[in-house]
Every structure is written in structure tokens, then in C-alpha cells.
């Protein structure tokens, strides 16, 4: 009740009317498109279509994020949701097949659960703070300080990066560890191996396992790779000033190698980036990030307190953020590359015609 009274529409009225109306229109259009996509996903039977629609869904939500001023998030969502996730799902479909076999089970219980949950949420929104109102409690208390002080305290213009890397730097360390944990999990489930080795086991046709050369694609890919990598480096180091940072850079960097693998095959890309090196880099990135924290501890500050890294706190913050973003980038890139390799290895084994039999659940 208290909240409802706080919602004075004054703040809204002072804003340029036209701009908010534009925002509204864009928003509603995008949201409707999202709804359409989601209902298609619910209904469709073709897994391939579902995965592609999910890619579209991600891209649309990235657009919404832009409309909602979350450019960093949009960047990441586009790279991850529409990019990596979709690629990984498609790689999975190579193994599992493109079609769902059966229609859904009778969805009464799920429908009931979903309806109840949704109804509860809608009921809850009725006294939630109004959308977009600058007076909302969420925008005050903690957020105020980030907006007001971070340019001077941290010394970089991108507030998202400031919060991400410094104020909430420990969250980001956790996030890097999550990525690393996923690598540990994927490696324990799937192996990364050169396809040649099991192709040889299966039969003696020496060349069938190799991709037919696609000269045009290969040349184009080769030309694009340096640009992608340069762009990745730009995103990596420009994160302080504009949208971007270690995570997005890592994803883009990984994309370069994914492109290479798609056109040249796993054999060649494994020669380019050997597995042990990737593993060392993945762990190394985490160690760089965590090491920064340990160094700041040794210098007398708290864990991840960059102020103590240099004589001047602001330059300390600069050093700290650059180093940890580097750690993030290295880990994310090498983890995503390795995960992709693992998926491709599995897909290649399928192509090589390995029988689908019930094997004991061992590391195969």
C-alpha cells in the first residue's frame, strides 16, 4: 500500500512524451513477437525448428534488452543465447536426431502447475512498483551510488563494468568458476579426440571421415578469422568505455575457432589449439582472476580490493579491472572452444557410424 502511494506519476510527466511512446511501441511489438515465438516452440515437433526458434527468441530478447537500455546484456545474450547455446544445441541434434518421436504427454498437471504459478505472479504484480517509474525503490538505495560515484570511485564510464568487475567482483569470479565447472562436467562426460582415431577403428575407408573441402567457405573463414579476433580484442579492452568486456570478448574469440572447426574440421583445429593448452588456459584464467584477489589480500586489502594494487586507488581499480577481465576472457574463450570440440567429437563419432548400444556407463 505504501508503495502505491509513492508512485507519483510526476516523474513520468516530466519526460519527453514522444520518447516514452516510441519506447512503448517498440517494446510491445518485440514482446508480441517473443510470445509468437514461444508458442511456436510449445507446439512444434521438429527439434531443429525448435532450436532455431530458440535462437530467434534469444535475438529478440537481445533487442528488448537494447530497448530497455541494457546494452551489455543485449550483447551477451546475442552472443550466448543466439550464438553459443544455439550452436551447442544444433551439435546435440546431430547426435540425437532432429525429430521428436512422440507428441507431448497429456499436459494437464503441468498446465495446472504453470497456471497456478503464473496466476500467483500476476496477482503479485498488482501492487508492484510501476514499470519504468524513476521513483521505484529499486532505483534508489544501492543503485544511486553506482550511478553517482562509480565514475569517480572506479574511474571508468561504463557503470555496468564498474559494478561487474569491482563492486560485485566476487559474483563475477563466481561466474567464471561456474563456466569452469561446466568445463569440468562436460569433459567428464564427453571426450575431445581427433576423429581420425575412431574412424580408423570403424573401417578402413581412409578419407570418408574428412569433410569434403569447401574451398570457398574455407577461404572466407580464413579471411574473417583475423577480423573476428581483432574485434574480440577490441571488445575485451573497450569494455571499460562501452558495452563489452571479458565475457563477450571470450565468446567472440571462441566463435572464431568454431568457425574454423566448421570449415576445416576438428583435426585441423585441434592441431591449431591443442587440448592441453586449452585446459591450461581455462584454469589459467580462473587463476589470474583469483590471483588478483589474493594479491590484493597480500597487499593488505580485502579479497579483490583493487584500491591497494597501485598507489592511487583509481589506477588500482584500472589495473584490477583490466587483469580480471583478461582472466574472464581467457577462461570463457578456452572453455567454450573446448566444450564445442567435445560436442563435435561426439557428433563425429556418430557420423563415423558407431553403434548405439547399451554400453556400461563408463568414460568412453
Amino acid at each position: 500500500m505504501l508503495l502505491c502511494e509513492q508512485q507519483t506519476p510526476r516523474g513520468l510527466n516530466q519526460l519527453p512524451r514522444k520518447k516514452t511512446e516510441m519506447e512503448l511501441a517498440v517494446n510491445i511489438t518485440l514482446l508480441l513477437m517473443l510470445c509468437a515465438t514461444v508458442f511456436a516452440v510449445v507446439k512444434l515437433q521438429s527439434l531443429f525448428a525448435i532450436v532455431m526458434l530458440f535462437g530467434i527468441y534469444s535475438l529478440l530478447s537481445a533487442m528488448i534488452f537494447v530497448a530497455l537500455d541494457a546494452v551489455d546484456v543485449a550483447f551477451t545474450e546475442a552472443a550466448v543465447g543466439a550464438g553459443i547455446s544455439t550452436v551447442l544445441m544444433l551439435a546435440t541434434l546431430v547426435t540425437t536426431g532432429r525429430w521428436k518421436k512422440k507428441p507431448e504427454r497429456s499436459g494437464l498437471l503441468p498446465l495446472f502447475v504453470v497456471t497456478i504459478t503464473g496466476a500467483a505472479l500476476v496477482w503479485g504484480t498488482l501492487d508492484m512498483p510501476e514499470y519504468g517509474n524513476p521513483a521505484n525503490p529499486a532505483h534508489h538505495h544501492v543503485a544511486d551510488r553506482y550511478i553517482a560515484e562509480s565514475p569517480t570511485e572506479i574511474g571508468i564510464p561504463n557503470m555496468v563494468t564498474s559494478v561487474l568487475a569491482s563492486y560485485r567482483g566476487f559474483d563475477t569470479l563466481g561466474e567464471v568458476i561456474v563456466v569452469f565447472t561446466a568445463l569440468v562436467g562436460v569433459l567428464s562426460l564427453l571426450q575431445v579426440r581427433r576423429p581420425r582415431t575412431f574412424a580408423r577403428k570403424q573401417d578402413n575407408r581412409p578419407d570418408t571421415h574428412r569433410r569434403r573441402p569447401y574451398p570457398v567457405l574455407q577461404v572466407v573463414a580464413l579471411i574473417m578469422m583475423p577480423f573476428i579476433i581483432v574485434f574480440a580484442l577490441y571488445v575485451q579492452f573497450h569494455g571499460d568505455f562501452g558495452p563489452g568486456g571479458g565475457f563477450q570478448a571470450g565468446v567472440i574469440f571462441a566463435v572464431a575457432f568454431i568457425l574454423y572447426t566448421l570449415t576445416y574440421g576438428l583435426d585441423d583445429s585441434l592441431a591449431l589449439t591443442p587440448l592441453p593448452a586449452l585446459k591450461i588456459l581455462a584454469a589459467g584464467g580462473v587463476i589470474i582472476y583469483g590471483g588478483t584477489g589474493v594479491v590484493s589480500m597480500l597487499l593488505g586489502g580485502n579479497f579483490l580490493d583493487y584500491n591497494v594494487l597501485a598507489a592511487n586507488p583509481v589506477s588500482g581499480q584500472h589495473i584490477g579491472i583490466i587483469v580480471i577481465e583478461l582472466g574472464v576472457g581467457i577462461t570463457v574463450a578456452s572453455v567454450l572452444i573446448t566444450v564445442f570440440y567435445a560436442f563435435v567429437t561426439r557428433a563425429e563419432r556418430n557420423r563415423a557410424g558407431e553403434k548405439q548400444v547399451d554400453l556400461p556407463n563408463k568414460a568412453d
Partner: protein
Amino acid sequence: MDSIFTDILAGALGRYNYWVVIVLMMAGFYVVIASTNLVKKIVGLNIFQTSVFIMYISIGKISGGTAPIVWANAELYSNPLPHVLILTAIVVGVATTALGLSLIMRIKHAYGSVEEDEILALSQAEDEDE
């Protein structure tokens, strides 16, 4: 009468974003729990999570604000904190997805199927064999 109507309209305008997001969220949630295909479950999970991300970003939006990057002409910045949280959450999401998909591939290898009911039947047969 008229004022009540405008109140309702104003209330709806202030919340339509949440409502649509709730619909999206629930659709994703429905796919997770109703689908029998493991890949589709993972897709549903992603949609569910992505919708939650949209909810967070909506919370951070300030009408008429701009992206929280300092520039000369800006008068009002949107709230950067939800953005940071969602950056983290997106990464967590992709990590979960990668692990889930690897599991699916191993399940396909071990059971020859990625349909939940078929796997369940095989598992139950195994339970009874023991």
C-alpha cells in the same frame, strides 16, 4: 467512473511488461515440465531463464533513461545493477545448458533414446531385473 477506468488503464500500462514476461516465463516453464523430449526440455529451460532475465531488466528500466554509460548529454541513466546480475545469470545459464546437452548425448549413447518415457521404461525394466 471515468477516473476508475483511467486508473485501471494506467495500472495496466505500468504492468503490461511484467504480464507479458510472466506469460513467456510460464510458457518456458511449461515446456520444461510437460515435454518428454530431453532436448526440448533444455530449450524450455533456456526460454524460462531468458524470460526471467527480461523481468530483471524491466525492473532496471527507467522510462526515458539511457544505457548506464557515462556520456555528456545523458540526463537519466537506467539502473545498472540488474544488468550486472543478468550478465552473470546468462553465463550461469549457458554453463547449465552445456552440461545438460552433454548429459543428453551420453543418455542417447547409453539408452539409444532421448525420450523421457522410453528411458523411464528402460530404467524400470532394469530396476526389476536387479
